[in-house]
């Protein structure tokens, strides 16, 4: 079994869904291949992190359906690519890590304890979220967005080497543009808390950042 074939099966392997000769072949390969062993280790670690997050019902906000749908699209893309055996681009990591990150993201969004509206630890490029006069539902939604984008930024950072320097610069410039815009909207919201149009603009700008990161993650997973 080649590394590419193992990449196709590693999600099922980690999930314990492989049986018979496939399971045996994957185990043999992983035992003798440091790269695949490392990927298995990373995948298990990500899933463990996701599993450790609290699980409660999804927050009833507009944020969730869009993200869930996009995760669904991501899953479709994964199935499409893994369904073909053709090697278009070499894929050193396959899509397993991306799937695990999606799982972690899913867990973060589904599992945020209700009523918690504290600013998140900055894992992305967002430094903080405003709390001054911001209604709790808005703050909670923004907390979710920041956490989600932080997770995606972490996942993407592992794939940056697959992008050309000019693409990396373009992505960084645009993320900065989006973060600047988010700050401007927050300043306006501080002056006019509860303004529905500003809230809508804040959500759509966060969504734009999420879309960008999801798209990059999806496309770079094919490298």
């Amino acid at each position, binding site marked *: 079994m080649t590394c590419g074939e193992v990449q196709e099966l590693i999600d099922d392997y980690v999930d314990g869904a492989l049986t018979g000769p496939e399971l045996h072949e994957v185990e043999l390969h992983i035992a003798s291949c440091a790269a695949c062993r490392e990927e298995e280790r990373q995948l298990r670690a990500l899933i463990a992190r996701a599993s450790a997050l609290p699980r409660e019902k999804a927050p009833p906000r507009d944020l969730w359906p869009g993200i869930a749908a996009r995760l669904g699209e991501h899953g479709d893309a994964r199935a499409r690519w893994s369904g073909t055996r*053709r*090697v*278009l*681009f*070499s894929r050193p990591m396959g899509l397993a890590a991306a799937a695990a990150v999606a799982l972690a993201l899913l867990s973060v969004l589904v599992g945020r304890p209700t009523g918690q509206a504290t600013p998140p630890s900055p894992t992305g490029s967002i430094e903080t979220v405003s709390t001054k006069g911001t209604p709790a539902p808005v703050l909670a939604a923004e907390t979710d967005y920041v956490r989600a984008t932080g997770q995606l930024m972490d996942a993407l950072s592992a794939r940056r080497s*697959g*992008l*050309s320097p*000019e*693409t990396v610069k*373009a*992505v960084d*410039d*645009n993320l900065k*543009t*989006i973060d*600047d*815009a988010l700050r*401007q*909207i927050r300043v*306006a919201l501080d*002056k*006019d808390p509860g*303004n529905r*149009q*500003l809230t*809508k*603009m804040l959500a*759509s*700008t966060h969504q*734009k950042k999420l879309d*960008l990161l999801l*798209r*990059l993650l999806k*496309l*770079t997973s*094919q*490298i």
Partner: protein
Amino acid sequence: MKTMTSMMVLALAVAPASLRAQQKLDEKRSAARDGVVEIESAAGSIHVIGWNRAEVTVTGTLGPGAEGLEISGGSHRTQISVETDRNPHGVNADLEIHVPAGSRIEINSFAATIAVSEVTGAVTAEGVNSSISVAGGSKEVSAQTVNGTVDVSGATGRVHAESVNGAVTVKGVKGSIEASTTNGRLVVTGGTLEHVGLETVSGPIRFEGDLTKAASIEAQTVSGNVDLVLPATISADFSLTTFSGDIQSDFGGAARRPNKHTSQKELEFTTGDGDAKVEVQTLSGAIVIKKRP
């Protein structure tokens, strides 16, 4: 034969590197007039041209890093891919692909320049470091890139055009448009439109087209300016909102603050019977509505 799978991999693996540096392509397959053609190539250029024949042809060259061309599938789904065993940077393949005009086209690339013309079926094109242009009467277009321009013209159905770091230009569409960019320029001109959704973060937005009677335009940007040039006779409800920008309208009315506690400015008015709906929101960008004679 109902199901025919043909596969061909140009046997380049054993060829010396000097020969692999430039390989001419000249391939042909029969194809249904309304089938699917999937194209995958890492970098270089992809030019897809619709024609009136029931066949797919591939010409062009495989350059450095392109290990081979694979054509697979049957007449209702033709899959064309350039194989490479390395990172797409440094790979080059220039493909000219003729397809039956009614085909549905799906293109996936990392850094190829993508051009589609004279295809009337649906076109989906996606890239990272790619510029994408789709011209002709495609009934549905979805074009998305991260770093590059997107140009769509002459489509006759739904258009989804998106770039993160590049200008998006849509011309002469008859149908509906969803277009967005982060800091590029977003321009829609001509055509007859039922729904238009335009969104940027800092890039300017310009719309100059015709609308169906009950059409809707929604434009949103944080700091870009919005220019809408609309028919003087338009019948529409307008709702224009900005927080620190200015609002100007040839259709009259003056922006006002909804209350003294906000810097938000609004301008709402109706022309004619208010059939269409025009909604614009900015944070700091200016909104300018002009009449087109």
